């Protein structure tokens, strides 16, 4: 069954091209991916991300349960602080990657990928039985918006009754209201721009969207779809599960070392990752710029002197750089900036050069 988010009627009203994605009907675009992408880089755009899953951990051993599951260290979070983490299998492969919010001393929230939420939920259930913690799946009851871009704060402040200046990067606040609705607002996102993510119960999120939409008129607020969400995260070098991460890719290969705390007490996958860290990775993620004309896409082979050395994990035309760019997983010795690689695109072998990730950094 394909679900609709609480904002489905709005997507249709605003001319969204609706597709099935991770079990949801969601807009892939409204006015064109490039136009939406540029609006977020230069102004402000709004995304419905209600498909994301939310698991809440509550109870005396909430922290212990969270710590066992994730590779990053939630003990260092203050209340209202947020971290990004991979969640690993015992062999170091990745179950999912997500944000963890510390909502209270003994209260945490995972915001997981829609496509992984059933698998994640099972994994969390299977691995937390020994703890005194109550875990609830709030995915179906919770809506989420992302308001992203250099003008996001100015716009959101028009409708938000707390001072947004006080919400720093990777912090949240559950006390403020939008249009009288309770919500969790955090300075987070998946675009490489400043911006906020807003969580509320399903009916609240519609009221909140309508208030932001109305206030957004003077900002030329752009409704954005999944297409722009992908190109924006791609330019910002943010990994996407199923592309740069997966059961067969560990976080160290994916350049996520700073989100893995090997000093932390035991967590699932720690032994395997310690071993990888000691030996060093054999392959890793790198960015490429196409030198010949062509667009690298997921799965295309990467070659050097006719030998296959890796594969493309993501690739597209970069609207900001106006170049064809890619992210590849290649043998370590070819992952250095300046390395020359060939990408097999259909029957042609096209030249590319390794460049630094992220491709885009906001000023």
């Amino acid at each position, binding site marked *: 069954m394909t679900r609709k988010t609480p904002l489905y009627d709005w997507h249709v009203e605003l001319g969204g091209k609706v597709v099935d994605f991770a079990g949801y009907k969601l807009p892939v675009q409204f006015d*064109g*991916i490039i136009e939406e992408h540029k609006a977020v880089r230069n102004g402000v755009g709004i995304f419905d991300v209600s498909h994301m899953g939310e698991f809440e951990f509550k109870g005396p051993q909430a922290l212990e349960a969270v710590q066992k599951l994730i590779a990053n260290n939630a003990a260092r979070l203050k209340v209202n602080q947020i971290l990004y983490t991979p969640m690993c299998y015992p062999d170091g492969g990745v179950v999912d990657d997500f944000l963890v919010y510390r909502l209270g001393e003994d209260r945490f929230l995972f915001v997981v990928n829609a496509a992984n939420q059933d698998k994640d939920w099972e994994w969390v259930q299977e691995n937390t039985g020994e703890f005194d913690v109550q875990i609830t799946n709030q995915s179906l009851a919770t809506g989420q918006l992302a308001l992203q871009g250099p003008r996001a704060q100015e716009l959101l402040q028009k409708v938000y009754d707390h001072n947004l200046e006080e919400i720093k990067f990777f912090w949240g606040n559950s006390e403020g209201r939008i249009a009288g609705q309770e919500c969790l607002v955090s300075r987070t996102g998946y675009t490489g721009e400043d911006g906020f993510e807003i969580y509320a119960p399903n009916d609240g999120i519609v009221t909140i969207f309508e208030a932001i939409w109305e206030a957004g008129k003077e900002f030329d607020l752009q409704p954005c779809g999944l297409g722009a969400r*992908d*190109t924006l995260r791609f330019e910002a070098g943010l990994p996407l599960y199923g592309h740069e991460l997966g059961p067969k890719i560990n976080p160290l290969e994916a350049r996520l070392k700073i989100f893995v705390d090997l000093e932390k007490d035991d967590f699932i996958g720690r032994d395997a990752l310690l071993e990888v860290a000691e030996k060093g990775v054999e392959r890793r993620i790198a960015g490429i710029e196409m030198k010949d*004309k*062509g*667009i690298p896409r997921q799965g295309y082979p990467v070659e050097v002197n006719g030998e296959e050395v890796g594969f493309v994990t993501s690739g*597209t035309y970069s609207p900001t750089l106006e170049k*064809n760019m890619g992210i590849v997983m290649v043998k370590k010795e070819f992952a250095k900036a300046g390395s020359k690689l060939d990408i097999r695109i259909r029957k042609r072998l096209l030249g590319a050069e390794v460049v630094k990730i992220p491709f885009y950094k906001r000023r």
Partner: protein
Amino acid sequence: MYPEELKYTEDHEWVRVEDGKAYVGVTHYAQEQLGDIVFVELPDLDEEFEMGDTFGVVESVKTVSDLFMPLSGKVVEINEDLEDSPEVVNEDPHGAGWIIAIELSDKSQLDQLMDSETYKKTLE
């Protein structure tokens, strides 16, 4: 929207016969479905194809779609402007956004294509 002098295929391509050559492109409907077109892979001149063969690729930001030969023939012209300005396919799909011109090997195949009215009905 769909000029009467063009012939159309089920793959949302069009053909215009002009000076003994057949110009080929994708329809307005196709470009709208694809979204922002950012790359067109063209065949080489003089390449020969059968009707239905893949002769090139059109890529939007998110998608990669094959281009199919609407008719059998030899490539006698390619629209090189698309290499630097693929967005022309979005802007003027039935005109400046043409992709290749072919010399037909079997003119009778033209009868298998749809006229404008019939094509429009397939979109309803």
